């Protein structure tokens, strides 16, 4: 790779930090399984006098969690416990209604179940509350003893479906919480533990957590009060596994390990996560003529894998897969170039498009 282009990336994000568009930035570039860049700059915390953001800082990766949930589902399929076309109602009794019975695991994985999309998805002027906080408030009202995970699920399912299953791409974090709940029930262990024991530990993702241990709180990058609260939140043992949509904390290097395993056909070194053909299907387009209108866009035919987004565009080769997370984090894998790119651009500003597209294009421009 062209070293001067990788230096350009540093100059570019340093400019964004100087102008106050970003709180900091960290990135990792790996080619052919070897890390060629792993750097960071800016501040770790939003608070005055924060220490600097280090390359191994822990960061909530939000929606990138979804690809871990998808991998967990596929691992349970390899275990013979689930199948993709299985009705969710087989595992979660609240789905056993005429309206919800047609929803299967594949629909949830591809965001085509018809369940509520995330607040703001339609640019609606008055958004519904975020499902997780809705659940939390409802639990407080009722006292958590009487309120069960099935009640949480009924809350997520309340109201009509937005569309028939399979008809429309409706990005739903709640749908991934439902998938995480299926992971819990099909594996017989809590979703978080399943991901820790079957994915994080075997891959050596030693700084990835659903609950960051207290000594590591000061190595965790946070962008606001509310995020600090989320970092230190108490456990809710009997609740819906809401973490399945956006609850993972990770690092650049740890996400690279997961991305590299996907690039290498489901294995990282001697560790086998998923079968090669399973991964190939996971990153292959699943949808045919399914429209989507996410956040004001109008896309007549959306393509997506099982948990993965496809074809991020610009300089990425066709077949590139990845996922982004709020606040903001990115993981992209380009099989044609054997390239893995992980990037954190923490910022309290809602949408900084130049920090999403710029770094990626600069990295791809460095390919000789």
């Amino acid at each position: 790779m062209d070293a001067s282009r990788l230096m350009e990336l540093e100059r570019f994000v340093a400019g964004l930090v100087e102008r106050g568009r970003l709180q900091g930035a960290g990135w990792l570039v790996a080619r052919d399984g070897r890390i060629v860049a792993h750097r960071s700059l800016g501040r770790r915390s939003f608070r005055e006098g924060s220490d600097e953001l280090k390359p191994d800082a822990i960061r909530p990766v939000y929606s990138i969690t979804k690809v871990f949930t998808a991998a967990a589902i596929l691992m349970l399929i390899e275990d013979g416990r689930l199948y993709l076309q299985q009705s969710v109602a087989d595992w979660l009794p609240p789905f056993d209604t005429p309206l919800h019975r047609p929803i299967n695991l594949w629909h949830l994985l591809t965001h085509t179940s018809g369940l509520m999309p995330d607040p703001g998805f339609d640019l609606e002027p008055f958004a519904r509350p975020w499902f997780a906080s809705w659940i939390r408030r409802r639990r407080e009202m009722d006292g958590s003893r009487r309120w069960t995970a099935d009640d949480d699920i009924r809350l997520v399912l309340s109201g009509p479906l937005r569309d028939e299953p399979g008809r429309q791409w409706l990005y739903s974090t709640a749908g991934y919480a439902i998938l995480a709940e299926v992971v819990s029930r099909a594996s017989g262990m809590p979703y978080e533990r399943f991901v820790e024991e079957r994915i994080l530990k075997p891959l050596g993702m030693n700084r990835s957590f659903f609950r960051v241990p207290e000594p590591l709180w000061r190595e965790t990058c946070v962008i606001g009060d509310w995020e600090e609260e989320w970092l230190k939140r108490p456990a809710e043992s009997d609740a819906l596994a809401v973490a399945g949509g956006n609850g993972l904390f990770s690092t650049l290097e740890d996400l690279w390990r997961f991305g590299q395993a996907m690039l290498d056909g489901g294995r990282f070194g001697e560790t086998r996560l998923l079968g090669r053909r399973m991964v190939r299907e996971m990153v292959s387009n699943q949808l045919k003529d399914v429209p989507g209108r996410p956040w004001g866009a109008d896309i007549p035919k959306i393509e997506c894998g099982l948990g993965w987004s496809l074809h991020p565009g610009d300089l990425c080769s066709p077949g590139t897969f990845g996922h982004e997370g709020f606040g903001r984090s990115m993981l992209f894998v380009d099989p044609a170039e054997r390239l893995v790119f992980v990037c954190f651009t923490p910022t309290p500003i809602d949408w900084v498009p130049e920090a999403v597209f710029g770094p990626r294009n600069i990295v791809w421009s460095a390919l000789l």
Partner: protein
Amino acid sequence: MKPFVHVGETETTPEEAGYRRDMLEKLDALLDRLVETGKLTGASYIMSRDGKVFAHRAVGRLREEPDSPPLTTGAIRRIASVTKIFTAVCILRLAEDGTLWLDQPVGDIIEEFRAKPFDRILIRHLLTHTSGIRPDPGYYLEPYPVSWREWSCAFGYEERTAEGSGHAGGRTAGGKPDLEHRSRWIRSILAGPLQHEPGAAWSYSTAGYVMLGEIIRRVTGLSHEEAFRRILLDPLGLRHTFFTVPEELRDRVCLINDWERTFLLRTPGPDEPPLTGGGLYSTLGDLHRFGLMLMNGGTWDGVRILGRKTVELLRRDQFPDGIYAFHWGERTRDFHMGMGATIGRAGEPFRGTALGHEGAGRSMLLADPEERFVAAWFVPSNVDWLPESVINVRTMMWAGLE
């Protein structure tokens, strides 16, 4: 009580074959669990890489009775709709030989198809389940499906009649098949309108494959059994694949209900509908050998059944943009199929490289030319629909490829 396990012969190890041993253990655990919980009476499979068998196992019972002998890897089993890919291979071979072509109107060969709207049906439509003729009972989730038995009763083609309408040229003398009688079952299948325009949708039709059998009979002048033997079974050495199981082998047949026992013993007349939509019996070994031929571009062990281009066609997606299929209520617009072979769909790890077919009762054969991988399995069950024994199994099998 732990079910009986029988281990068949292998030629190599999973490691040598580039196959994950942990996936074999998971697969066995799943099948054992389905047998132990009584959902399957038995389960057997064979898998090979590059022509060498590396996994070969049977668990459970040969019959449904508790004191039944064990199911072994050598058992004979009705393969139901897996028959269809054998039929497709015969049709494609006849096309290779110049005897027919795939865009040929069926009416060229079966005169009942010359009447509108059947005159637009081509051989290709029958192979790809797009002709619109008589989808299988229950395909449209109709609450009161017309079973094959009701259909026979309504049209009486099981009874030979002395008087006929003479539509197809009347009766023939000298012990030859009664053409009027044969025409009667053809007309009974065509009775009523088409379900949809030919080519407009995918609607699974065993009747279409029965018609392909009739085409094989007419263009070869042989019974469908004899045509299958000459084209395929004898050259490839499939000695335990039959439409009628010889009496001396009947105690090796896996049978799990009364209907299967009756079906085994029936003796169809020469002018009854050919059972090319689902009537074959076979073994894992024979299915595997047939799969090796498909995996290897049409030739195996020095025997050429099909040319390389013909196997490519059998596997090539006939609906690259997807086709509408009601598909037992699913109403998908993204259905795909080869020229007579199942090739998988979104979410199926075998898609894009493998071809094969599934059969009721249940069984499946899949051959993957790119992975040089062949898998066949029998999962006999009296449970109505047991996706775990089919969808999970094939997904796990492909997940095992290193």
